[in-house]
């Protein structure tokens, strides 16, 4: 009996989904997810140096090691040079394409942590 109800419910659900599909406005975005329980707030601590550094790799190479591309390889860059470059980008003192925008996402403390990571990588 319970199984029977479940089957009916499933058929109903499938039918309802079918109807929704048929009446969905043309080219409409999918419905937004239903409001659920409140989400846990993000952690307050800064991310680790390695976790931040790996977000640079899409342009600057895995571990900052880069072959044959126009970007600055970051592997082995002295800490002071990295920190100065990032702060200058962030403060608009150094002309850039998108590095000002990226640098704006990081605090002094976070820039320091990234600099420690890259300074420790041996360039190839």
């Amino acid at each position, binding site marked *: 009996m319970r199984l029977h109800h479940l089957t009916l419910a499933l058929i109903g659900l499938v039918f309802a989904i079918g109807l929704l599909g048929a009446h969905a406005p*043309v*080219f409409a975005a999918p419905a937004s997810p239903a409001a659920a329980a409140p989400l846990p*707030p*993000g952690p307050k601590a800064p991310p*680790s140096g390695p976790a931040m550094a790996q977000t640079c790799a*899409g*342009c600057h190479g*895995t571990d900052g090691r880069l072959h044959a591309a126009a970007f600055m390889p970051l592997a082995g860059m002295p800490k002071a040079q990295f920190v100065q470059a990032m702060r200058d980008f962030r403060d608009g003192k150094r002309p850039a394409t998108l590095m000002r925008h990226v640098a704006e996402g990081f605090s002094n403390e976070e820039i320091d942590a990234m600099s420690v990571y890259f300074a420790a990588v041996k360039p190839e």
Partner: protein
Amino acid sequence: MNSRRQFLLASAAALGTAAFPALVRAGQASARIVIVGGGVGGATAAKYLKLADPSLQVTVIEKNPVYIRPYGSSEVLNQHASFQDLEVRYDVLRQKYGVAFVFDAAKTLDPVNKTVTTAGGKVLAYDRLIVSPGIKLRYDSLPGYSEPLAETQVPSGWIAGAQTALLARQLQSMRDGGTFVLAAPPNPYRCPPGPYERAALMTEWFAKHNPRAKVIIADPKDSFVTDETALLGWNRLYGYQPPQEYRAKIKAELMPSTKPCALEWIQARAGGTPQRLDVKTLTLHTAGGAIKADVINIIPAMVAGQIAFDFGLTDASGFCPVHRATFESTIHKDVHVIGDSSIADAMPKSGFSANTQAKWVARVITDGLAGRDPGTPVWENTCYALAGKDYGLFVADVFKIKEDGRIGRVNKARYLPLDASPAQIRLSAVYQQAWIQAFTQDIFA
């Protein structure tokens, strides 16, 4: 990397097998990570898992033995790249990093026994599963359109492949003075600046090869990512006249109109919303009227890749809900969903998003297996796009989990500054090409 492995081995020895009851079995010392999908998300995850811990058994299930990269694939249309340029091989991941590949379609997930079964009947057991299936195009979202039509007459070309090549042939052989209509997709979709870049690149190509041709974007939206910077570029390159509401925003001096512009963007408010395709007459019917075309490119609505549905990982939105801090599915434990299929709030559905999500999940998994806290997550997105082949644009974002528990941007401006110098604009185009190369290396080499 080496010290990390030693640490893992040392901790395993110190703690004994009891600390890893699910992971350590007789004769099997390392965890099995199965990855479904060998695109940007899946391939990045495979590489970064092996970099963090070479002893992990990492297996990628992927249908196609050669990857056709979607990023930069519109450059096949304007002959800036060849189709072969899009092909990326998995040889380095296999040989240098020791990633195993199963070239087959993943079919079913058993989240209780933790196995994935392929179409070919192979059963893969996992300790952690990463699902990165990209997007599925909802061809049926536009009446009159279908997948068979997309493959033969009206290509979408939004998942790079045979449809991209078909669209290239159609555009390059379009009749003299013909009209190319691009139906832009509704939000959310993969590669937010992409449809507009495609239209602009073809406008530039036609100016040289088919100077009386027209390009029309029929849009179900009133704005798009990079919009004011793209519209300014179109003005400078093609004499495009931006809609009134953008003129105040752009601030920079606009070139006056001298002749009708070859490029037209019909916003939703101007009747651009695509409503029906009539393939017999090659006409796109929009809210504002019928547009007769010579070549039509439909970029339809999108949802999570089919595998996400087959695995029961999607919700009513058609995408996959995840715990923000780990990208673990809120539906199935030990299953992480990354890339276009995941619900990642402010993060765009871009290759760069998938790439930084993959690296973060690789860290969550390796730190989790070693009993370490992975710490605070951070992600980035940068997308370069072109208004013309020497006119670069971009969007750049840094993301963290905000107070409300959602992923949000933490930097200020996103786009190329409107007062950017010609040198910055040219350099952005140089960087767009360099990015394709560097990004491909970070994922596959």
